[in-house]
């Protein structure tokens, strides 16, 4: 089966997941993002690459941060941005998801930025557009269920490359709730595709997927051993509804075992960087001293995120013409 996000010539028509994306495509996106970082530092933060195009932010699940960064990215490219917060599940509205899409395509949408609580929703939309010969309308996955968050993965890769240059000599630790994390899945696929020799997943068994090793990671339950010698430490967000219950006894015990403190960070390499996709739970997965410390690159991640999203939107728009 062909990867549904590539056309027959191997060009990106949708961005749905980093899994199966060739390294050249990932590198092209990262390279394209580089000049966009400096645009943000100018007085006039706009380029006309997407002038006249309509980008629909289609958020079936609430998100302020991701929606805002996509909105900024699209506006800096001079696109018209339409925000639709559909909130509830597609089925409860009486209109099916694909009916919604057909209606918006009839309004001449050029791009959909889709956030959905169900894994695979953007694939369903992309497959529908491909099947009905409307692949000139592009789909960007802005996070689907536990499955993927490819622009977050790309901005994480951009950040790592910015500080560490070569992926082929890195040891990266991803700590926390990998089971429910689309961020972790996307980052793991991106890192392994770019040749990172060692990716570690660190967490309790309740928060790691059963077959996590098949993603190409080493598993550690002891964070001390897991952080040993790492170049990059990526902390994952722990959703508040998972802090107590059958997955974990308490936020306090979680922090004791898997919270990133200055003492634990000392086990990583002296120049290790600390990342977090945000929003952070201080005192749950990360100590403030680390979050605000010299090795934290959490705020640069946000800045790079806009550049990376500009790169994705402009590359997709380019593939249409």
């Amino acid at each position, binding site marked *: 089966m062909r990867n549904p996000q590539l056309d027959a010539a191997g060009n990106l028509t949708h961005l749905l997941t980093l899994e199966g994306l060739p390294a050249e495509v990932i590198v092209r996106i990262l390279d394209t993002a580089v000049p966009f970082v400096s645009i943000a530092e100018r007085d006039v933060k706009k380029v006309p690459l997407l002038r006249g195009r309509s980008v629909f932010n289609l958020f079936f699940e609430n998100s302020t941060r991701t929606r805002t960064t996509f909105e900024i990215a699209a506006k800096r490219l001079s696109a018209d941005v339409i925000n639709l917060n559909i909130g509830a599940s597609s089925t409860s509205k009486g209109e*099916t*998801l694909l009916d919604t899409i057909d209606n918006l395509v009839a309004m001449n949408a050029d791009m959909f930025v889709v956030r*959905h609580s169900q894994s695979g929703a953007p694939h369903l939309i992309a497959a529908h557009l491909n099947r009905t010969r409307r692949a000139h309308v592009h789909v960007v996955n802005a996070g689907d269920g536990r499955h993927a968050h490819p622009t977050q993965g790309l901005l994480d890769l951009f950040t790592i490359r910015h500080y560490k240059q070569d992926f082929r000599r890195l040891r990266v630790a991803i700590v926390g709730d990998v089971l429910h994390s689309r961020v972790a899945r996307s980052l793991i696929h991106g890192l392994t595709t770019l040749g990172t020799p060692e990716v570690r997943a660190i967490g309790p068994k309740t928060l790691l*997927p059963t*077959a996590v090793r098949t993603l190409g990671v080493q598993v550690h339950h002891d964070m001390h051993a897991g952080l040993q010698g790492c170049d990059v430490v990526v902390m994952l967000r722990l959703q508040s509804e998972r802090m107590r219950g059958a997955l974990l006894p308490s936020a306090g015990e979680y922090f004791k075992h898997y919270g990133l403190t200055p003492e634990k960070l000392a086990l990583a390499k002296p120049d290790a960087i600390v990342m977090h996709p945000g929003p952070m739970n201080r005192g749950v997965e990360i100590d403030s001293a680390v979050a605000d410390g010299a090795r934290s690159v959490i705020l640069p991640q946000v800045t790079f995120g806009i550049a990376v999203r500009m790169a994705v939107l402009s590359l997709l728009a380019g593939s249409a013409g």
Partner: protein
Amino acid sequence: MKIEIANGRLIDPKHGVDRVATLFVAAGKVAAIGEAPAGWSSKRTIDATGLVVCPGLIDVAARLREPGFEYKATLESEMQAAVAGGVTSLACPPDTDPPLDEPGLVQMLKHRARSLNQAHVFPVGALTVGLKGEELTEMGELAEAGCVAFSQAEAPLADTGVLLRAMQYAATFGHRVWLRPQDPHLGRGGVAHDGEVATRLGLPAIPAAAETIALATIFALVRETGVRVHLCRLSTAEGVAMVRAAKAERLPVTCDVAVHHLHLCDVDIGWFDPQCRLVPPLRATRDRAALRAGIADGTIDLVCSDHTPVDDDAKQLPFGEAEPGATGLELLLPLTLKWAAADGVTLPAALARLTSQPAAMLGIDAGHLAVGHAADVCIFDPEAHWTVEPAVLRSQGKNTPFLGLEVPGRVRATLVAGQVVFES
């Protein structure tokens, strides 16, 4: 009407028949096999040269969607699908709306089905009122109305105490209980097998232990109560091993597998194909191999279609929201033939899984061809291949993971009680 089905390859697994012979049908029954009865004159002759003539197929799991889900399918559409697939008897699970928990509903369904004059319908009654898993249904009344067994369909029965009581009560009157083995707690919220694919795709998962825990519970309660249990839709390698052991122990259990589980595994979900959203979930390749071995060696008694017509609106949704199930009545024979050909199973052995075996499990006089017994007959061309496409399916449900696949076995004619109800 006197009908002569001439020169076909007559395969009747129950009686060990596999030879070229002519079948004579009169007054709804088989009148003779081989030689015409004295003074015979046919009103009609069906030339079955090069075709297989076998007992009409029996499908123990076909959802007809009535009452309650007529927008997904109707009795008319699904009964046509049945006979087009060579199925002349079918059992339908109680998960209608309302569920089949009252004799009146069962009588109405039987009456509606009879008036269509196509396949015979054998309703399976609800084990508990409303399938809620709390109170027992009036099994005696339901059996009188025509229920052949009692089941929870896909509704969970979380309370083991209720399950024990239901089994004791059913055993008292000799009713058979059908159960789909799945621990309700481990199964809750899951949509895919707990393995590599669910990990990659981020799909909520159902571990194999959901099936094995339920099997262990059921077997313990069977030992306790002596009730006859039919296990529906086995899906795991460990489950097959447990059933093998239970049979070696001579527990009164039988079991089935859905035909799609013989061909597909979780990898076929690909990029979230909602057609592969099935219950139980498609499992790993090793599970599929064990199911194929289990049906070949008799651990699994029979193959069913688990026919579930689903409308497009309910299917074309993100994987986890898509309604589970696949249409199957018209694919039961082709997919069973495909399995048999690939695994070197003979045609009579394969057909036994669709005729004599389900008849024995249901305890009905069907699934064989004998003089004086009902002439339910399936005539098919084992060499004819066809492509599964929405337009060729008579079922209102076009939902199947096999769309586009070329399959062997085309039904040429179907007879129910001596009448030709389908021809192509």
